[in-house]
């Protein structure tokens, strides 16, 4: 078991290097001189030179062969990519071009908001998706099943940014029930403990704060939860249908066990494995989907920040956040693989 985990951990390393390579290559996609692109057309000569110096853009991208000809072996490795990689090893994602603050600092500040939104969306998706999927499989070809199938297809077809806009239209503009954006009303404060506002409000016993935070988060969370809910419902349903055809389910029913016991104790346990994989994959999509949802609801997480940075052509931020999400995505998949091996004894660890 430990050997399997170690092996799986080692396979992540080349993938991680590949990921950094792709993100590094982003910079090469910028048409023209990246330094000029970063600063805009009207940048002064010195500023361009300073940015080139700061980001090592005056160095070659991968290896410096000229240094080698001059007999400088260390200089051979002094390149943009090696510098980039070296900075990454020191948890340095570079500085924002416009605000001149380290990207890492802003990530620390904004990531909790994104995590809170993603967690709540996942919670909604699980609470709604799994029971409906089970019910739909248990009552196969009934009206409920039909509605579920069509509903989940619609769920994966709705553009989440459009759903978000329609929510704002209806609940904020027309009914004026819920705020259209932000994380908290102005003047409202919640003592930070974990930086997840809902949790913090509960921990500090801040009733009005909890209510206010809930009112802000509920619309974006629902918008973000649509696709995972639909996918988890479909997956639970089809996985349950597979399991319900097994002999041991028939045996369980035949010996007179109640439907509920058969469904939950015998079937669900075995139907849950594929669902776990899907949940893992969905966590990555939730973080990425945040770019759209957070933009619409002015949610102060990393998604909105990336959007603003794209518009402001603040490339280090886009690179940094993409890397962060890819790494989180990789780690979640790793955890899913490992938990899969733990949960299903039929899977060999070799």
């Amino acid at each position: 078991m430990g050997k399997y985990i170690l092996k799986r951990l080692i396979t992540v390393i080349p993938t991680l290097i590949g990921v950094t390579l792709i993100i590094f290559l982003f910079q090469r996609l910028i048409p023209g001189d990246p330094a000029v692109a970063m600063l805009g057309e009207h940048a002064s000569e010195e500023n361009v030179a300073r940015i080139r110096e700061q980001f090592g853009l005056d160095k070659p991208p991968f290896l410096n062969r000229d240094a080698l000809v001059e007999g400088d072996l260390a200089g051979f490795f002094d390149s943009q990519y090696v510098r980039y990689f070296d900075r990454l090893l020191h948890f340095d994602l570079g500085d924002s071009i416009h605000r001149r603050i380290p990207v890492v600092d802003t990530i620390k500040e904004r990531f909790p908001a994104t995590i809170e939104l993603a967690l709540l969306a996942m919670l909604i998706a699980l609470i709604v998706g799994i029971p409906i999927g089970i019910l739909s499989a248990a009552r196969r070809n009934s009206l409920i099943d039909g509605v579920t199938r069509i509903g989940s297809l619609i769920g994966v077809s709705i553009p989440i940014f459009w759903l978000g806009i329609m929510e704002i239209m209806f609940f904020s503009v027309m009914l004026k029930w819920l705020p259209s954006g932000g994380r908290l009303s102005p003047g409202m404060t919640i003592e930070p403990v974990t930086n997840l506002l809902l949790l913090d409000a509960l921990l500090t016993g801040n009733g009005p704060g909890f209510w206010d935070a809930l009112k802000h988060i509920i619309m974006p969370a629902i918008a973000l939860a649509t696709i995972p809910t639909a996918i988890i419902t479909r997956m639970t349903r089809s996985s349950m249908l597979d399991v319900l055809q097994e002999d041991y389910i028939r045996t369980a029913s035949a010996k007179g066990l109640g439907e509920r016991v058969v469904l939950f104790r015998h079937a669900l346990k075995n139907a849950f494995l594929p669902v776990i994989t899907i949940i893992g994959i969905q966590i990555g999509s939730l973080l990425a989907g945040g770019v759209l949802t957070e933009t619409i609801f002015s949610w102060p997480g990393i998604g909105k920040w990336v959007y603003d940075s794209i518009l402001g052509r603040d490339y280090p931020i886009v690179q940094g956040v993409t890397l962060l999400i890819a790494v989180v995505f990789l780690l979640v998949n790793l955890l899913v693989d490992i938990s899969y091996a733990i949960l299903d004894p039929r899977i060999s660890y070799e």
Partner: protein
Amino acid sequence: MTEIISEDQLLTEFAVREHRSLWLDAWRRLIANRTAILGLVIVAIFLLTAIGAHFFWEYDPAVDLDYNAKLLAPTFVRNEEGDQVHIFGTDKLGRDIFRRVVHGGWNSLRVGIIAVSISLLIGGILGLLAGFFESTHLNGVEQAVLTSLLGLGCGALPAWIANQPFQALLFMLLGLGSALFSTFMAHRQNLRKVLFGVIGMAIGGLLGLLVAPLVGLVCAVVGLGIGIILAKPISGKAFSSFTMRVMDIILSFPSYLLAIAIVAFLGPGLEKGMIAIGFVGIPVYARLARSAVLSVSQKEYVLASQSIGESHGRILFRHIVPNILSPIIVQATMGLADAILSAAALGFLGLGAVPPIPEWGAMLGDSYKYLSSGAWWAVLFPGLAIMFSVLGFNLLGDGLRDALDPKMRL
């Protein structure tokens, strides 16, 4: 002169089941499925209106502007002043939304279709080859080609360092030699590695020395490594796992985010959106094609054609491809739905179509800033267009899965 009564004619009277191909059977199952029909109808409506509008309904977005008709609510009858009828209302520049939604379909669907074609073509071929060679040995020619290419690719590094392009050619020859003499010292792999390593070291080192001593040293070390790699001719399995490793790297990004990031750096534009979405989709099709090939590559008909000595190309395209088409068609249909959604997302973020070109996502992105004015129609209709077209492809894909693979029916 004489009547010839053909005996064959009599024979054909035999009561045989009407010949139906697999595809005709699938088509019959498809049109027997109500939800699939619904999907088919939706897709047909969108495709026909988009194509029809593009060719027969003139529209020049550059001059479409009418401040007098700004943000009008939908109307179905002409009012007293005889104003134009706008069944979907107008947007903030007074443009008829119905017209833009119909014309937007051309751009939105085109991005989806071209993006899926890119991913399908590249990913499909990669997956096909990876799956096939995972279980089949490379023949002599293939091995020679691949090992030479590997030599050329690896040799490019020392060649670049020393600025001597012909070094790469020498390494290519080394690879070719390794493939041609693959039986030479085959039972003493370590000695073979040493031999090739030394040859590689000599190529890199000696040529590098001509430039500078340090260049010679570095090239010798690199050449040693390349020689050791080339000592063992490429196996099908190595090729397959390398391809899938690269695919895994692309897959380790959430696809939405990778597409957004690529376009953020490339700059906005419909074509760049197509490239980004197409690139992101490549591993999906590669994985699918590979696993589909693996599932049929041990079937009797493939083994039979192998044993009678059919060429690899013929086995692949005559026997394997026709039998793995169905999952790929299903995935491509569903993939179209995804690609349209991603394209709309890019457009919404201002990274797709450049204004004033009509595109559903961009129209939404344009109008949602005017939400507080209560102009619900400006965001409702482009969104509905996205949703229904995506739903159509999803329904069709679901129906196709049932029709093409009755065993998988759930």
